[in-house]
Structure formats: C-alpha cells, structure tokens
C-alpha cells in the first residue's frame, strides 16, 4: 500500500486554468488532492489530473519548461490513472492546429481541431460555452455498455455537462472514444479512454451533481486500482 501521507490525486499546476475547482471536487468526493508542479509529488500520487484552460502552445511550452511533459508521459506509461480535462485532454493528443501547428504530449494519437462556426449554414458562437449532452458513440460491435466501469459509469445517456472550448480532439482510433457531443455541424469526441488514460472535454467539476458523479467514479477507480495492487 502506498504511503498514507502521499496524496491520492496530484493536480498538475502549470499555471493554466482553474485548478481550485478541480481540487474542491476531489475533496467533495473524499479524495486527498494536491495542486503541484513537483515531479516527485506527481509521480508519487495514485492518480494524476491534467486540467487546463488556455492556449495550447503556451501550455506545452510551460509543461516543457517545468520538465513536466516527460513526467506526464511517464505517468501515462505506468499503471496509474491519468485524467485530462478540457485543455488537458487536448494536450494528450499528438498535435493541435490552434494558431498554427503545435506538437502535443503524443500520449493518444490524434489531432486537435477548431470547432465549426456554422450549423446548417447559420452562424454559431465560438467558444462553445454551456451545457451540452454527452452520448454513447455509435453502436459498438460488442453489446457491452462502453460506459460501464469507466468514469461515466451510471451517468445518464444525453446528460448535459458543462463545456468551455473552441477546439476539440479527433483521436485516430475510434475505439478510444467514450462519448460524443454535438456543436455546430460537428459531432466531436467529448471523452475518451485508453487503458489507464482517460479524458474529457467538459468540466465535470463544474457540471453539477452529474459532474460530481464522474468524480465519485474516479475515486472508485482509484481505490479499486490500489486494491488490485495489494492483491498482486
């Protein structure tokens, strides 16, 4: 069992976004969370949350300057949970087209693209700010519920979550897509999961009771993961 004093969740602080609402949501569901930019603390935590709001290039530059890009890749390569939220989800991808072309962390193959500003020829506002439903991706070959056992376990189909973004991710592999949402003419990937890496475009910490349910699922995943370690 890991050190009782170590934090269950490390929230990566690279100067972007509202880390505090993430921390408060963690605490609300009983997770011990720390906001940190220390590689040591990040590597000692059972789960790592990469949050973020802001510009892609600045975020990548800051992560590199703080020597955190490689630390986050190490977390992804380990068995510990890595959760990207909003810009944090986009940073997991290979590259972004936000104001030019910028390399991402390359943890999930795929690209970050600009949201459309049209729907059926009519203008729509960008950024996409507000509550939009999340849906299971189009029918999978298997009949199992893709949300079962994920951080969306027991979330209602079509549940509105809070989004604030101008760009969205397009993973190379469709089978990592956990949910889709629509804005303008685009149906985009609003959450994804691949092994120990999971991410969402929406802000569960700002999505009311449904969002807190996502945090409860994360707490569940963290505790079952550490139980598995105990039994090994």
């Amino acid at each position: 069992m890991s050190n009782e004093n170590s934090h269950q969740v490390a929230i990566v602080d690279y100067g972007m976004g509202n880390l505090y609402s993430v921390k408060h949501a963690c605490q609300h569901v009983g997770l011990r969370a720390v906001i940190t930019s220390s590689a040591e603390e990040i590597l000692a935590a059972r789960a790592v949350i990469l949050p973020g709001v802001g510009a892609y290039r600045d975020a990548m530059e800051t992560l590199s300057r703080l020597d955190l890009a490689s630390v986050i890749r190490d977390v992804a390569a380990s068995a510990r949970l890595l959760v990207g939220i909003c810009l944090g989800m986009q940073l997991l991808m290979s590259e972004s087209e936000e104001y030019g072309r910028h390399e991402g962390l390359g943890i999930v193959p795929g690209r970050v693209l600009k949201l459309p500003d049209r729907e059926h020829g009519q203008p729509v506002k960008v950024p996409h700010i507000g509550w939009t439903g999340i849906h299971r991706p189009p029918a999978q070959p298997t009949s199992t519920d893709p949300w079962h056992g994920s951080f969306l376990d027991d979330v209602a189909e079509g549940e509105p979550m809070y989004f604030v973004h101008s760009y969205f991710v397009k993973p190379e592999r469709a089978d990592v897509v956990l949910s889709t949402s629509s804005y303008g003419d685009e149906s985009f990937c609003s959450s994804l999961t691949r092994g120990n890496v999971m991410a969402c475009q929406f802000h569960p910490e700002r999505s009311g009771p449904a969002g807190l349910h996502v945090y409860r699922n994360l707490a569940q995943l963290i505790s079952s993961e550490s139980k598995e370690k105990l039994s090994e």
Partner: protein
Amino acid sequence: MKVRLIPRLDIKGPNLVKGIHFEGLRVLGKPEDFARDYYEHGADELIYMDAVASLYGRNSLLDIVERTSREIFIPLTVGGGLRSLDDIRSALRAGADKVSINTAAIARPELIREASRTFGASTIVVSIEANQRSDGSYEAYVNYGRDSTGVDAFEWAIRAAELGAGELMVTSVNREGTGKGFDVDLTRRIAASVPIPVIAGGGAGSAAHVHDVVAQGGVNAVAIASLLHYNSMRRFQEANHDATSEGNVEFLRRGTASKRFEDTSIDALKTYLTRYGIECRHRPEAIAHVE
C-alpha cells in the same frame, strides 16, 4: 444549444445587495445562502459582482468566492474592481472559473488581449453596462453603472470581441433592477455583431421577459438578479432565515419589494422556456441537498 440561466449576485461587503439602475442598494441577505439555493435549484452558472470594488479599489469578495467555490459545482464568474492580470489571477485562485471586466478594460483595452492570452479567452467575460442616451444611442458606462465614458456600446462590443473576450455580458443600465423587461433591441444588435456568446442582463421581471430576450434578442445566456432574489428571499423568510443586520433591511418587513417581480424560480423559468420551444438544462429530480 441550451440557453443558460445565470443568477447574478451583486455583493457589498458580506451582503447580497440589489438596487435599481445600480443605485439604492438594498441588503437582501448572505450571498452564500442564495448561491447554494440557486445551485440546488438548477442554476447553470453564477455571477458574483462586487458592487463597490471599482469605486474603492478593494477586493472584499474573494473570501466569499473561496467559500462558495467549495460547495457550488457550477461555473462561477467573478467581477467588480478587477484591474490587472494579478487581480484576475487572485480571483481565479480563490475559485472563480471566469472573470468579468469592465472599468479597467475601457481604461486600457489591451487588458482584454493580455488576459485572454494569459488565462484563455473563455475565462474572460467583458461586461458592458449600456446606457441609452436621449437620442437613442447607447454609451458604455463604468464603475457599476455610474460613470459615462463617451464610448459607443456597439463599437465597444465589437472591439472587445476582437481583442479576445470569450463572452460579453450586456446589461442595460436603463432597465437594470426595474423588472420592466430586457432591452431586446440592444442585445439583438450586439449578439448579431459578435462571433462570441452574449449574456443579457438588466430588466427581468417575468418568465415572458426571459423568453423574449432569448427568442428575439438572440442571446446565449441570461443574467437574472431581482426576479430570483426576491423570490428566494421570501422562501428564506418563510423558513425563518436569519435576516442580516447590516444595511437597508427595512423594506423586507414592509414586504413591498417584490411587486414588480413575478412569483417564480429557476425551475419555473426553465419550464416556461421549454414550453415555448427554448432548450434548457433541467435538473434531475433527485438532486440532493447533500450534493
């Protein structure tokens, strides 16, 4: 796209206050109590606006923000007296998700660009307090609707969007606190001229007013104060809620304050909008007080 209903809480010292045309502020109670009530009743976001910070250059709001952010899991926008990137950073560190700037942005428009670049465009709401002149034109006001600037509100809206604002909150000074309905023409003209979302504020007195500013004003969100506050206050009083001792509370006892405002709630407003074809987020029936 679901329209957002956003309770706006104007704060002076430790109290929730409300005036008419931004003047004659009455104390309504503790902002945290109203914030919790609105969260539990399906508010889509909250706005905290410091009613005096612009005038006195202080930020007494941050303690309230900090406490609120721990128990309210919807987006919180904080404004009033934020003058610099450091001020914005303090608000975000206290738990705000977005900040709203007006006075400092008019004084130095580049602040919008710098803030948007530093914190992300979607974090920066530019608040426009639009006052209609007798010739029908609109002027942007500053310092909580008190001071004129000579800046045309429509030109300023376009400029603010170009400088990188993520959203605009457009409040009609003429309608603010009156309950006479929104200035639909003002919001429609601004919403049609910028590519970013627009929040309408100032004038909500009934569900029909909210409907009109969404259906005809073309806005993405509506900020509502008195219409919700007076209804919540009545519910609190019925529940024997402690009234605050600071400020003007006499009108509470007279019970005449809410005549200009329909009996309603966030749920009732959303039910009304949905009946008329406007999409809203409805809270799950099972929302619990423990949340």
